């Protein structure tokens, strides 16, 4: 039953999210010390918080996380809180809740990663299909080595090169940030949108450059196998036009593994973009995570990581559920 497959997949989603929450709970306990409390007390000492304010902060954490309860109860409270996205308060921006920090930066990341992934997927797939296609001009094969080298490198390393050449040297793109220093965030004005797009181009480019190779090389390999299939020979014998053969016979059947690849690559894409954001000072989740790491803001680190895990698990689930709709050969009706 399709329903059984969906239920099983949902069960796995719950399992992943539970595992992430448990990891966030166990890790600080494994250290044998209490890194979170250490940070809070250190902050009190250095910032000279008044005794009352400090006590209020500690009490707030105690209340939310039930720190005066036995361990198993702390654990259940913790997991319940995480599932409600009640992720605690930022230590360095107290009393700002972590979820608010995530809300502020999430949009920037989703737009950047979403656009870059869609563009890279489309461009890479078509490019790869063309390279793999027998009748394509031979010079396309020259693209294979650069595609491979780009796909092997981490995006933030390529980002440095792009910043140097395109932003510093050629001055075509800005050095970083998501919008001009003196621009106001105003989603209703066209001027802001243009400024935003202009700033997003270089970070998106470094993400695209890396995944272009992944999609392109994958597609090329698939295309080569598909070309050997009997139905291709049949189509050719029938005298079908090259364009039709390429799109409806070749591309369409070679496309499916690419979509599975999208589900598998999701984690790597978001990981790569987190670092690219840092190197471009882009105000998304990656940059906030980096700030939290540099200031030992543990609740924010855990909150962001947990949130990202949930997001990726959900996105992977969606791709998996869409997959059978695209491939008529696969139905999850028999025992799978």
């Amino acid at each position: 039953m399709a329903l059984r497959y969906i239920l099983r997949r949902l069960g796995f989603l719950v399992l992943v999210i539970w595992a992430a929450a448990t990891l966030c709970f166990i890790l600080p306990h494994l250290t044998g010390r209490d890194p979170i409390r250490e940070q809070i007390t250190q902050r009190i000492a250095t910032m000279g918080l008044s005794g009352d304010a400090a006590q209020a902060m500690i009490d707030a954490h105690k209340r939310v996380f039930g720190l005066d309860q036995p361990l198993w109860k702390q654990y259940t409270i913790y997991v319940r809180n995480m599932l409600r996205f009640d992720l605690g308060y930022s230590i360095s921006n107290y009393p700002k809740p972590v979820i608010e920090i995530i809300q502020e930066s999430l949009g920037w990341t989703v737009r950047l990663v979403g656009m870059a992934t869609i563009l890279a997927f489309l461009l890479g797939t078509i490019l790869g299909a063309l390279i793999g296609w027998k009748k394509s001009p031979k010079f396309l094969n020259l693209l294979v080595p650069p595609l491979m080298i780009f796909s092997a490198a981490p995006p933030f390393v390529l980002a440095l090169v792009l910043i140097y050449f395109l932003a510093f040297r050629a001055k075509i793109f800005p050095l970083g940030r998501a919008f001009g220093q003196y621009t106001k965030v105003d989603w209703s004005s066209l001027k802001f949108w243009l400024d935003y797009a202009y700033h997003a181009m270089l970070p998106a480019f470094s993400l695209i450059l890396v995944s272009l190779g992944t999609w392109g090389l994958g597609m090329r390999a698939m295309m080569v196998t598909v070309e050997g299939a009997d139905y291709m020979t049949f189509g050719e014998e029938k005298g079908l036009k090259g364009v039709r053969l390429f799109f409806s016979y070749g591309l369409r059947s070679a496309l499916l593994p690419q979509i599975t690849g999208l589900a598998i690559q999701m984690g790597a894409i978001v990981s790569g973009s987190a670092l690219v954001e840092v190197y471009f000072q882009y105000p998304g989740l990656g940059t906030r995570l980096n700030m939290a790491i540099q200031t030992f803001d543990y609740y924010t680190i855990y909150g962001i990581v947990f949130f990202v895990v949930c997001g990726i698990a959900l996105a992977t689930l969606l791709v998996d559920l869409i997959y059978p709709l695209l491939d008529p050969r696969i139905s999850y009706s028999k025992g799978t």
Partner: protein
Amino acid sequence: MGGILRYIRRNPSLGWGLGLLLVLLLFATVGRLFINERDAYALATRPDQPPSWQHLFGTDTQGKDLFTGMVIGMGMTLMIGAIAGSIGIGIGTVLGFTTGYYAGSILDSVITAIVDIVLTLPGFFVLVLIASTLADPATLNVVPMGVIASVTAWAYPTRSIRAQVMTMRERPFVMMAKLSAMSTGKIIVRELMPNLLPYLAMSLAGAVYGGLMGSLSLEGLGIGNRRNPTLGMTIFWVNYYSAFMRGMWWWILAPVAAIILVLTSLVLISMGLDEVANPRVRTRV
């Protein structure tokens, strides 16, 4: 030896990959004869110098000689990758063979479920979680860094080795061994392992690549011992001191080229070994 060379001629990706890796290894080992190790650390030379005969790759803002840094850093980074990769492939082999051989058992379902979960988790974020909580960054030298990076490097080998073992265990020669009352351990070590060697080597290249990506990403954020001139840490300092805004191209060029060469060599090796392990993949016309 002649046979190997002849084979490599037919399998250029493997040849190029191994050759490149060999050059990098020589750079990291023989290069040490030409350097004074202290030059790789802060305040050793004049800062911000472009490449010259005295400083082949130039110097950075902290006064480190970049050539010395690259020789030592290349060694450290390759070591981190080797440690992460070996742990990853070690765990992957043990779990992959157990689950593949006993496929369908409860143990298999449990381990496979864990592998599926780990593969869904975004590796970099998990590493951030672990590295930022467990360790004092200043103690994250080569060995601890390799161990941490291995956390995400074992799951993929486990899954792919399991799949290989599952197809292998139904083959007639394994059946024969079973019928002749060979013990399970012996079957795994004597019958299955040798047949999967190219496959294991390929998984090792993949695991080293994964471990390197993990450690480079952590170091890119400055997580790790910042005193060490590893390739990832050099990148971190490039960004920290905004080398690109000051036109210090040599400071960007050295670590970026080094990282791309290391990772490309691993991808080439893994592609070449893929051809050894699955002759049917041989796409070369």
